[in-house]
């Protein structure tokens, strides 16, 4: 007898626990802000929670037993448009779990209303797009202005410069005897400065024209270009002990003229910065980096301190003074522009007095 009472007592406790557990889950489902829908295996609606009324803006009862549709979700969840008669459509994030409901295969579908979040996202996107567009337009305008400015400045500077140069030379030729040694020295400096400035103007013109010129792409033999540039340097300064190591048959798809200017500037750079060493070795070759072809021009010259590496490619940036190594500081800016126009990248590696290597990619 006693045993039986105990069993009944235990059943009661079990029932109580079950009731409590069910009440807890019922509370979760009833108060969930997400629409919860249970359908059978074919997509017929068996249950909808109260939140579904708010999400779909309709009475729940009329949908029980109706076809919701077989939910197709690619991955975790999928976005759907919520139809709300009499209201603007919403956006929902649908999540589906295959489960059992009353011992039969079923789909447990939760739909989170993300209408507001979507709206905010789209507004943000629109603002950002507009902002970007405005900035791009401003940048384009200022770029065009800058280009036009540097073009006209360098172009217009040529005429007065030519006359300063011309008349200085005229004084030198016709009135040299009327000047004393110091006077002639001053005039000499004017002439040298004129030549420097003329070179600067030419380089600036070239820099501004590189962006304007039309690209004519074809297969270009870079090895041949490098070879003829190297020959030119050797002929101009036959006294120098320099060796050019040019890897054979390096080709690239690009604008022949621009690539020639670029190689010329890189090799000239190497030629110039090895000038103070008794002998020099200048190499042009290719290597691979992450499956991509990387071209390089390397020398064993003056090198540079890596902490200035980001200054190398700016126009008018010079890491050495003009007395030490002549130049306008535009050569590498031109290289960078040409490489960018080919969709590539250029960077440098160096160490003071241990040489410099310039690497570039082309697309």
């Amino acid at each position: 007898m006693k045993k039986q009472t105990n069993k009944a007592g235990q059943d009661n406790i079990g029932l109580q626990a079950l009731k409590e557990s069910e009440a807890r889950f019922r509370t979760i489902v009833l108060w969930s802000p997400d629409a919860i829908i249970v359908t059978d295996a074919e997509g017929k609606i068996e249950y909808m929670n109260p939140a579904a009324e708010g999400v779909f803006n309709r009475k729940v009862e009329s949908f029980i037993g109706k076809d919701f549709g077989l939910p197709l979700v690619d991955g975790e969840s999928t976005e759907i448009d919520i139809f709300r008669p009499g209201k603007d459509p919403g956006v929902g994030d649908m999540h589906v779990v295959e489960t059992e409901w009353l011992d039969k295969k079923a789909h447990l579908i939760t739909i989170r209303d993300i209408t507001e979040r979507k709206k905010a996202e789209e507004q943000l996107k629109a603002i950002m797009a507009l902002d970007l567009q405005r900035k791009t337009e401003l940048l384009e305008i200022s770029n065009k202005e800058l280009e036009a400015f540097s073009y006209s400045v360098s172009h217009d500077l040529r005429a007065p410069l030519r006359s300063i140069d011309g008349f200085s030379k005229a004084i030198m030729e016709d009135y040299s005897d009327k000047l004393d040694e110091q006077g002639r020295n001053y005039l000499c400096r004017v002439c040298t400065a004129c030549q420097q400035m003329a070179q600067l103007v030419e380089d600036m013109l070239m820099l501004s024209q590189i962006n304007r010129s039309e690209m004519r792409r074809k297969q270009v033999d870079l090895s041949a270009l490098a070879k003829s540039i190297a020959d030119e340097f050797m002929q101009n300064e036959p006294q120098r002990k320099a060796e050019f190591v040019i890897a054979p048959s390096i080709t690239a798809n690009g604008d022949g003229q621009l690539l020639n200017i670029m190689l010329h500037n890189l090799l000239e750079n190497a030629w110039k910065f090895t000038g103070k060493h008794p002998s020099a070795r200048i190499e042009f070759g290719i290597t691979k980096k992450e499956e991509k072809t990387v071209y390089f021009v390397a020398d064993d010259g003056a090198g540079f301190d890596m902490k200035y590496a980001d200054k190398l490619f700016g126009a008018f940036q010079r890491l050495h003074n003009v007395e030490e190594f002549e130049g306008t500081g535009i050569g590498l800016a031109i290289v960078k522009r040409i490489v960018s126009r080919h969709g590539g990248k250029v960077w440098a590696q160096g160490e003071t007095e241990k040489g410099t290597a310039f690497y570039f990619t082309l697309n």
Partner: protein
Amino acid sequence: MPVKYVLKLYVTGETSRSLSALKNLKKILSEDYKGAYSLKVVDVLKHPKLAEDDKILATPTLIKILPPPLARIIGDLNDREKVLLGLDLVVIGGALNK
């Protein structure tokens, strides 16, 4: 070829969901049905009454009217196989076999 399959796709205006569902469906239909179908696209914003009559809760919802049985799927239509299975059109070795 006589029209054998009659389908109705409910969409909501031109949301990205609507557009991609339509694109995916047209791809499946042109690959597997080759002109033997008739597809009616219904915009719930323009025809709310039709959508209410069909008890549409959300879109994209695709309903297969013919051949019977009536079948309905909801969600994205990215996965060709799931779509065909959902519409109760069994695919065997890539060919339709209903």
